[in-house]
């Protein structure tokens, strides 16, 4: 459990948020032309990194807005929080 600095609401307990998993997975532009392997890659395969990871979070019990976060999954330390559409910071 940790404290997250929501870009819209400020610091709140992690229990107010829900995690949307790995960030920056781009939705296929031409879904009809995708092979089964490519669909599997998009839908299921994840880096699941032990270390610095870029991920999506939602302030589910607050403003309900989505944003991105850079967090070290080996110690839960948060390195950066940034809004959707913003360029990911270099960590």
């Amino acid at each position, binding site marked *: 459990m940790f404290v997250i600095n929501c870009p819209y609401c400020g610091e709140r307990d992690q229990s107010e948020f829900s995690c949307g998993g790995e960030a920056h997975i781009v939705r296929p532009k031409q879904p009809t032309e995708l092979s089964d392997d490519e669909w599997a890659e998009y839908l299921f395969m994840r880096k699941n990194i032990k270390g610095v990871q870029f991920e999506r979070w939602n302030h589910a019990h607050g403003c309900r807005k989505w944003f991105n976060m850079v967090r070290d*999954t*080996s110690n839960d330390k948060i390195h950066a929080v940034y809004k959707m559409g913003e360029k990911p910071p270099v960590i």
Partner: protein
Amino acid sequence: MKNKYSIFSLIKNAFSQHENWKQAWGNPEPRKEYEAVIVGGGGHGLATAYYLAKKHNMKNIAVLEKGWIGGGNTGRNTTIIRSNYLWDASAGLYDHALKIWENLSQELNYNIMFSQRGVMNLAHNLQDVRDLKRRTHANRLNGIDAVWLDTKQVKEFCPIINISQDIRYPVLGGTLQRRAGTARHDAVAWGYARGADAMGVDIIQNCEVKGIKRNGDQVEGLDTTKGFIKTKKIGVVAAGHSSVIANMAGLKLPLESKPLQALVSEPVKPIIDTVVMSNAVHAYVSQSDKGELVIGAGTDAYISYTQRGSHDVVEGTLKAILELYPIFSRMKMLRQWGGIVDICPDASPIISKTNIKGLYFNCGWGTGGFKATPGSGDLFAHTIANDEPHKLNAAFNLNRFVSGDLVDEHGAAAVAH
């Protein structure tokens, strides 16, 4: 087996104040090359090595463990064993394991304290009642013992349960698998380690894998903290750290690793002689032979490798425990811990070849791998030795995420994930 444990060896060693028991397994340095290497010295990994040696006559093998054997999820789970899964493939897999559990102490000549005390799953709403009844029917069609109990029968089977209809999630009934139960979790790792060691398997502790060497699409060996080890077959059984090993081989898996917590209370006299699980309120409880209540909580809903977990998850579980068992209201909790579980999108495991030759994965057991330990080891050993899955684990291949032929146990497996 040399140094067989029996009443006679017990008496003999009593005369020397139990100071001359031999080490149950050795502590060798790694050789330069092995026929196969198992990565991960938990229950599943040690069982795999044991069955590779016993059933497939592969003796030149090693188990690499980065910490100490059984120090990961094998020593962190709530020891529940059952096979009452909904889908045919899962029923086959988990009941195969349960059948091995039933003779495992004898097979290993090691007391794993297997206790068929029954596992009861409670229903708290009408949908639970429908789902659980459906599951008992499916179980029985698959030859797995399962009965439906109404509220009164639940109370008779476990008298400390609060069956008041005025609580937030009243007990509307439950299912019971009498062949299910518990086992002493670290004894399982120790028993398999001793059995594998006796057949010549090298169990190498404090040896972390740092890289996997490939020549094209064939594995050639592993870089470890104890140097390079050459091998043509690598079986990875690294639980929460499966993705970390997969990334070393340039492979992505459909897994997310999350902390799962459990806790035990101070020891008390026998009060609950079965295992009660409740999916809707997420509270599992049983009592260890030492007298501690063993309580299972839920996973944290985000990826983390921290082996701790959040306080609010434990709080939620204990609230549910108190409502169902008001008698525990003044119990003190003694210890709390977390383990990292690797969860698949369909909440079923992967026991599979990969598209890299000689690289096999046994992972994705999520929150419920302990119960499958012997079956998982047996089937993974078969897969590694023959380079083909056994019919019981054929459905649990990695390719199901491409073909779409998932074994969707989410919500069907009698627990929430």
